[in-house]
C-alpha cells in the first residue's frame, strides 16, 4: 500500500513549506490517483504533518473531491436553473438509462463512466447541457444521449 503512494512524494515535496496549499495539492493528487482514498489521505497527513481530520474535512467539503474510484469518463449533467427549466431531468433520466447504472451507484460496473450532477456549466444559453470529460454538449434532447455516449466508449 505504502508503495503505491510513493509516487506522490514528488508532488507533495513541491508543496512543502508553502501557504494555502491543501486544496491545490489534493487536486493534483486526485489527478494522479483518480480519487482520494482514506489510505491516501492518511499517507498525505503523515508526509505533510497535517492532521488527517483537516484533510478529510476539506476533501468532504468540496464537491470536486472524489472519495471513491471513478469511471474512465466523467459525465457531468447540468442541473442549473436554465437547464432545469429546459428539461434537465429528462436528460438525466436518459443518461441513467443509457449507462445502465447500478442502483444507488453513479459509476458504471465496467468503470467506463461516472455520472455527476453540476450546478451550472456556464453555457446556459445552450441549455440543457452536459459535459463529458472536457467536452460540452448543448441544446440536447433525451434521444440524442445514447449516440453521444457511444463516442466515448473506448
Amino acid at each position, binding site marked *: 500500500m505504502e508503495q503505491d503512494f510513493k509516487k506522490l512524494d514528488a508532488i507533495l515535496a513541491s508543496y512543502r513549506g508553502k501557504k494555502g496549499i491543501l486544496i491545490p495539492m489534493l487536486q493534483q493528487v486526485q489527478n494522479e490517483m483518480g480519487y482520494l482514498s482514506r489510505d491516501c489521505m492518511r499517507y498525505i497527513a503523515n508526509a505533510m504533518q497535517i492532521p488527517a481530520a483537516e484533510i478529510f474535512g476539506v476533501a468532504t467539503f*468540496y*464537491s470536486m473531491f472524489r472519495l471513491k474510484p471513478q469511471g474512465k469518463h466523467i459525465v457531468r449533467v447540468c442541473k*442549473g*436553473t*436554465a437547464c432545469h427549466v429546459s428539461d434537465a431531468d429528462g436528460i438525466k433520466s436518459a443518461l441513467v438509462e443509457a449507462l445502465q447504472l447500478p442502483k444507488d451507484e453513479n459509476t458504471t460496473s465496467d468503470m467506463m463512466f461516472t455520472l455527476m450532477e453540476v450546478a451550472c456549466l*456556464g*453555457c446556459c*444559453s445552450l441549455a440543457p447541457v452536459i459535459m463529458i470529460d472536457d467536452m460540452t454538449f448543448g441544446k440536447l434532447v433525451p434521444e440524442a444521449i445514447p449516440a453521444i455516449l457511444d463516442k466515448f466508449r473506448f
Partner: protein
Amino acid sequence: MSEITVKVGLASCGVAAGAMDVFNKLTEYLAANKLPVTLMQTACIGMCFEEPIVEFSGSPLGQMHVGKADPESIVKVMEDYIAGIAPQSNVILAEKLGGRHNELLANQQRIVLRNCGVIDPKSLADYEASGGYQALKKALSMDKEQIIEQIKASGLRGRGGAGFSTGLKWSFAAKAVSDKKYVVCNADEGDPGAFMDRSALEGDPHNVIEGMIIGAYAMGADEGYIYCRAEYPMAIEHLKIAIDAAEAKGYLGKNILGTSFSFDLHIKEGAGAFVCGEETALMQSIEGKRGMPTIRPPFPAESGLWGKPTNINNVETWANIAWIISNGAEAFHAFGTEKSPGTKVFALAGKIAGSGLIEVPMGIPIRDIIYKVGGGMKTEKPFKAVQMGGPSGGCIPAQLLDTIVDYDSITATGAIMGSGGMVVMDTGTCMVDVAKFFLNFTQNESCGKCTFCRIGTKRMLEILTRITEGKGEMADIETLQELSENIIKGSLCGLGQTAPNPVLTTLRYFKDEYIAHIVDKKCPAGVCTALLKYSINPDKCIGCTACARKCPVSCIAGSVKQVHEIDQSKCIKCGACLKACKFDAVIKA
C-alpha cells in the same frame, strides 16, 4: 486587394456549439490554399443563440457576421465573401434577424464587454491595440487618493450582487495600516444560470487584470488572487496566458512600468462549493480550509486573507475600473441612473429567443431587455416570470416587467439585482417547482454552520416537495413563511439570509399556484409529475398501438384499431405515450 479578416468565436459557448470544427476546417483550407485571409480567434460576442458565429471583414461587402456556421458550408461562404459575392441572406445575422438585430445592438452599451468577441483574448498585443494598459499608465501617474476618489465619484457599485460602493470599499482597505495587503477577484460565479464572469474572463482577461493592478496600486496591495471556479477551464487557461504575458511586459511583477510599485497575481482554482462565493468563505478557501463563512466584523478590509487587509471585488466590478480611469467618472455617469450608474452585464437564458450575453445601461426596463434585446420568447408560450439573482433572488412576474434595472428598484420587487443571471420562464414552468429547485440547491450548498440555514432549508424543501406531490396543506404556506423569517434572522452569511427569497417571491406573486397544488391537487403548468394524469382521448385514438409499445410499464391496454386505455394505478407518468402518439390522442392534465 485589402486583407480580409475572418474571426471565429471560440468561447466555451461557441466551442460547445461546434465552433472548433468550423475553425479547424478554415485552418485546414487556408493551409492548403493561398488566400489573402487572416484567420483569428476571438471569444463570445454575446449572441450565443446563433453560435457558432464567424465574423468576416475587409472586403467591399463590409463587416458581416454569419450565424450557426457549419464546417460544411463555411468555406463556400468565405470564398464568396472574398470574391465580393454576398452570401445567402439566411446565413448573415443582420439579415436573418432583421429588425431584431438592430434592437439587439441599439439597446446595448458595452463597457465591460467592449473587447469581448472583438479581440483575440490570448493576445496582449490585441488588447494593447484597443487601448489596453493605458489606464494603468495613467493611474500610476495619479495620486492613490485621486484614483479612489475617481472610483467613488463614478458611483460604481459592486457587481457581485450586494451593490456596495466600490470606491468606499477601496477607501477602507487603503486606510488600513499593514505591512501586507491583498486584492482578490471573485470569479466563483456559483449562481446557476449565470455566465457573465465566465465570458468576461474568457473574452477579455487583461481588462480584469488591469483593473486589479490599478486597485492594488491605489490600496497599497502587493499580492492578488483570482479565485475562479474549476468548472471554467477556458477562463483559467486564458487568465494564465494573460498573466504570463503581462508579467513579461512588465505590467505585473516587480517595479511595474519602472515605478516602485510591485504586484504579483495568482490564480486559485475553486473546488466546487457555492458558499465559497461569499467573501469570507472564499478567503478561507484560498487559505486551503473548508470554505465556511466567518463573522463580520472584522471586515476583510481590516483582517482578510491570512489576517491581512484584503479588498475583494467581483470580476465585473474589476472589469469596469480601467474604463473609468481612462474615461473619467463623469463619462460613467452618462449611463444608468443616479444611484446605479454605468452598465450591467446580464446572462439571458431559459425560454428566451435570444439567449446570450448582453450589456445594457442601468435604468433600462426589464421588458426592453426581454423583448428588445432578447428578442422575446422562444416559443408561443407566453412569458410568466424572470428569475433574477439565482438562489438568493426571486421571480419577477409579468405585471412588474416595467421595473427598471437598478439596485433599488429590483430589490423592491423582492428579487435582487444579483450578479446578472436572468432566467426567463414561460407558462410551461411551475413556480412551486422553481422554488423547490432553489431550496434544493441552497439546502445542498449550506455549509452547515448555522442551524437555521442547515435544518430550516431542509424543512422548507420537505414541505415544498410535499406540495408538489399533492400532499400539501394550507397550513404549509404559513409554516413556509415562518421558517423563512427565522432563517433570514438566524443565518450568519448571505447564503442563509437570502435562501428563502425564491419561496417568498413566488408566494407573493404566484400564491394561486401554491393553492392549486394544495387544494385542487393540480399543477397548472403540468410540471409536477405526481399531479399529472395521462389519459387517452377516445375520439382521437385510432388504435395504432404506438403508445402501448412504448410504455415502459405496459400499462396501456387495447388491441389494433381499438381505443386504448391507460391503467392509472400502474402509470408512472413518464410521458412516453404522449411523445409516441402521432394523433394528439394522449392528454396530459
